[in-house]
């Protein structure tokens, strides 16, 4: 059975979009919810547990979206910077190494 994956939605504000464009990564964004740009970074079960433990404000929306929400904006900025650095959304291991 495929391992469950849980998205973290990095919503792309103007500042983040400018950084993506500068790095030539503007095309990485998905579009959701009637026009919002988003980068979706996926965590596995163990990573999800570590994120929820490390960042107490974070919440797993088990009822509706099955996504990890309410990470502090600064933390999401760090995840975003890692995406730009690696030119990939497959960065969760690298990101969590610091914690």
């Amino acid at each position: 059975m495929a391992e469950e994956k849980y998205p973290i939605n990095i919503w792309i504000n103007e500042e983040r979009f400018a950084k993506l464009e500068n790095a030539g990564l503007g095309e990485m964004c998905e579009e959701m919810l009637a026009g919002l740009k988003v980068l979706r970074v996926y965590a596995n079960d163990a990573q999800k547990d570590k994120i929820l433990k490390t960042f107490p404000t974070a919440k797993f929306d088990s009822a509706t979206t099955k996504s990890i929400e309410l990470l502090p904006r600064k933390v999401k900025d760090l995840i975003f910077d890692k995406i730009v650095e690696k030119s990939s959304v497959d960065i969760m291991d690298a990101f969590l190494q610091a914690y």
Partner: protein
Amino acid sequence: MAEIGHGGKPIVERILAPAEAAAKIKGLKAIEIRAQIANEVIDLAYGYFTPLQGFMGKADVDAVCEKMHLTDGSVWSIPILFDLTADEVKNYGVAPGVSVLLTYGGNPMAIMEVEEVFDYDKKAMCQAVFGTTEEKHPGCARTYGYKDKFVGGKITLVQKPVINDPYTPYFIPPLEMRKRFADKGWKRIVAHQTRNVPHTGHEWLMKGAFFQSYAELPIDKHYVGVLVNAIIGAKRKGDYIDEAIILTQDQLRKSGYFSDDTHMTSLTLWDMRYAGPREAVFHAALRTNLGLTHHMYGRDHAGVGTYYGAYDAHNLLATVQDEINITPVYSENWLFCPHCGEITSEGLCGHKNEWQKFSGTLIRSIVEDGVKPPRLIFRPEVFDLTLECGEKYGFGSPFVTDTYLEKRVPVFSIPPMK
């Protein structure tokens, strides 16, 4: 003619006239109460909790826990308790037949005519009401935090609460609410229970419930209204601030997403117990007293974590449907379908593989990331007002912070007695 509330009992306001109140409180021992108790004193005195006229005695708590009824036979699902320590009972001379003065913020609020002082097994109460005894369930945590003695007895306000801005227009007690409904000519009114700033999923829940409730009624005039009844009580860090919740709910009407003929916003003072199915039954009683005829219930109504199944509340309501005077309106989830290009419901839309579900939590993440959601998802007027409330009332944030908890303007105050 008496207004009849839940349990077929008349709604009674237990509030003394000022001259009488001053004389009645002379010589009474004063007990300062906390916010939860003060909220419930108001609810009891204005008839929100009809047929209750005071805090429960042991027989009623037993009946509620074991049979989900009061001793008078009315359906009731959550104990309404006034707790004291054994020392407080002794020091204040609290005993059957004694009246005490309840103060809030140091000022006289209500007289309690003590009928009974009793102990109760909190663990058994948790199991009965919440279906669990786990301390991590917020309702259990609250129950375990109660002091060890419970005091039953009738409540009478000696002063009306002063409702502070911006809540003033939204405090509409049962008797007044029923007059407002009559003035509007509404024959059916459906309750929307909320503790959220509304996104369009909430908006469509209400619109869907409006259509469901309207059914066969004529359309020459508007005969159906939606009442948003926001639960205002204890807050947790990260929740939306109360001011943002109540003002943005009303903004849906002010911005025309609902007409004046179909929508009204109000509040009830209550600390959520997260009792899921039992809280759903409690909501039915509460909203019956407010004069509502229909009540929206979605999935996992008033639940928390994974304690309750999605439809447990619906199933429990069905067991008492013949005994309550409010019709449940069950709501499916609303979501965004990019294929349809609109908000739609799980039951209507056939593009299941394309559905994009969203929740209050997800919207909060979008806002915290500094992004303005599209109007199809979150109304711009609601978004702007949410941020404005953060600046005006939330010390820079529309979400509850330590500063907000410490410095917020209280929903109501009890003034010094003249």
